[in-house]
């Protein structure tokens, strides 16, 4: 009985200590940001309905800078040349209809800098009216693939600024498999690629003010709440940041998160599988130890 009382005291003090240095301290250190669940409530609802056919004609202007690979439209310039021209490589538009919020996208076409909250956004306003914007959005929704993989979501939404070295992703694509010269160990193709990435990164850093961080392990460096509210609206967490609001839908964000979890916390499935077994082992161990203790202390009191 006395031992249980002592255990109770030790437990209470330990829990108070934990509360103070973890949940309480973190609640005081980080500012609280209320997300709006990717609804983009600051943007007014669209007053018109889009027409995909009209949109298709209007979207022809997009391929002046962007590619729409699923529709057989290639980019006019490669990634490095694009970065040299605009500061960053414009995204492929094949799956934006599946990942980005409809309302966001329409307002974005009307005024990119305002909607992204990024002062020096490279893309100019690209729709003449709300009707045009809605039509273009309707077109991209009509060509959007049903299923977008987590990596595809990352590439479209984040991948042109943020590398992910644990998945061999650079801002200009996957690191290609190359072979080195067997006699010298020199891998010219790899060096060539490295140089391209370097040029791209320098241009990107000029455009953004600094090189956006590699996101390989960001899932463990930031809390889930931070990532969610930050991606939804970067200014809410980091006022003045050059990162634009990208306008992901909730599902789009979940896909990006799944990818970040895969590269930053790959042991999760095995951890969940192994945990119960190890705990079961120690429960049995403790039970046997208890029986041993009981038999050893027999007649001692």
């Amino acid at each position, binding site marked *: 009985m006395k031992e249980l009382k002592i255990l109770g005291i030790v437990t209470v003090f330990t829990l108070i200590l934990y509360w*103070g240095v973890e949940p309480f*301290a973190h609640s005081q250190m980080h500012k609280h940001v209320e997300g709006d669940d990717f609804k983009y409530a600051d943007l007014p609802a669209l007053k018109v309905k889009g027409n995909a056919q009209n949109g298709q004609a209007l979207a022809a202007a997009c391929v002046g800078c962007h590619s729409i690979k699923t529709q057989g439209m290639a980019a006019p310039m490669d990634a490095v040349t694009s970065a040299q021209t605009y500061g960053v490589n414009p995204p492929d538009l094949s799956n934006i209809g599946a990942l980005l919020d409809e309302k966001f996208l329409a307002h974005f076409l009307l005024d990119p800098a305002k909607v992204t909250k990024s002062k020096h956004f490279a893309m100019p306003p690209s729709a003449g009216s709300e009707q045009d914007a809605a039509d273009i959005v309707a077109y991209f929704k009509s060509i959007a693939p049903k299923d977008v993989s987590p990596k595809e979501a990352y590439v479209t939404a984040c991948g042109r600024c943020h590398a992910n070295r644990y998945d061999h992703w650079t801002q200009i694509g996957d690191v290609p498999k190359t072979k080195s010269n067997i006699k010298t160990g020199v891998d010219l193709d790899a060096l060539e690629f490295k140089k391209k990435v370097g040029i791209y990164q320098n241009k990107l850093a000029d455009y953004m003010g600094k090189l956006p961080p590699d996101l390989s392990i960001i899932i463990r460096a930031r809390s889930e709440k931070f990532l969610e509210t930050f991606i939804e609206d970067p200014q809410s967490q980091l006022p003045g940041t050059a990162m634009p609001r990208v306008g992901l839908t909730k599902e789009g964000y979940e896909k990006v998160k799944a990818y970040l979890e895969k590269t930053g916390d790959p042991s999760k499935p095995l951890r969940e599988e192994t*945990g119960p077994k190890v705990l079961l082992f120690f429960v049995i161990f403790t039970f046997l130890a208890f029986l041993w*203790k009981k038999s*050893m*202390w027999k007649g*001692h009191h």
Partner: protein
Amino acid sequence: MAHFDENARPFSHKWLNERLAIDTLKRVLSTEYWIPKNINFLWAMGMVLAATFGLLLISGIFLLMYYQPNTQLAFDSVNYTIMSEVGYGWLWRHIHGVGASVVFLIIYIHMFTGIYYGSYKKGRELIWLSGMLLFVLFSAEAFSGYMLPWGQMSYWAGMVITNLFSGGSLHANGLVEWIRGDYVPGQAFLNRFFMLHVLLVPLAIIGVIVLHFGTLRIPHVNNQDGEEIDFEEAAELYKAGKVKESKVIPFNPVFLSKDVFVMGVYFILFFYLVFYHFEFAMDPVNFDPADPLKTPTHIYPEWYFLWSYEVLRPFPTDPGLVAFGFAQVIFFLLPFLDRSPNVAPASRRGAFKFWFWALLIDMIVLTFMGKLPPEGIWSTIGLIAALTFIGLWIALPIITAKEKKL
């Protein structure tokens, strides 16, 4: 010259006994090493600590096989190679990280148990002193280990802590550079902390653990009532079969059986943390690679250093360093500052009872404030708690000298 039986089979019991005195060793160190019966589970914390140290050592050896002490490679060797390429590397790392944090929780429980029951007095001074030495060594081990992943917190904590050696207005920058091997933490810094973490400090820890056990053997462990036991008499009674009347039990197997049971309960908690709740031991900030051009918004040490950090922080530089130095050494002096002749639980020692709980609560308050940003009300509370900490230690000899003999 001792007598050796030439007919004894090599490695037989007799052969070993003549050469190693294994029977005597076993008797002295285990089966006739007497432990008071009147104890509770807090007396198992020593073995729990030994077991945790074992876990840290084993997991550390596995991590050492893949870790790269190089400022360019260290971060990814930990976060990529060990976490995703090495089979169960994540498990070893989480055991190591959680173990490093939990070991301090158990150390503090172990220390406060000693303070509560007066287990540092009357022949037990060396147990306390060697234990405190272990505390310092574990702190050095924890700090040096924290540098190794070369994340943002490794780098900046390394910067801040080595800066302390400039001695405030002494401006001993030469000393700081000598410790770092550079003007700022860099390759030389990482290499030497790597050496400290995997060789010198663990060697010293193992040596002092042996010393700590040694200091315990003659005075024996204390008991729940601080009762002075005639161990020889009690042992005779036990050996005569009167186990119920005897006040002692042998370390092996009776005390050990309870130790192992407590360890089992502890391991359940430990591995629950390892699998389901390891984040508390692995600060998110350290998952950003070290960046000398970007200071993190909040720099704070791991939770177990927060109280002493907060004794430093609320004061101006020079008095702060003096207060910090005070906090580092004052626990060593406990056996000499406690002037009371009583070895008894704090609950029976009058004013000391209040002193004990005041110290515990004050250190928890210091710990909280050490992590919070030093602004507004938090820095005021921190300052009061730091002054209280110093005041409590100054008051200790006075209140214990006035204590009535029980």
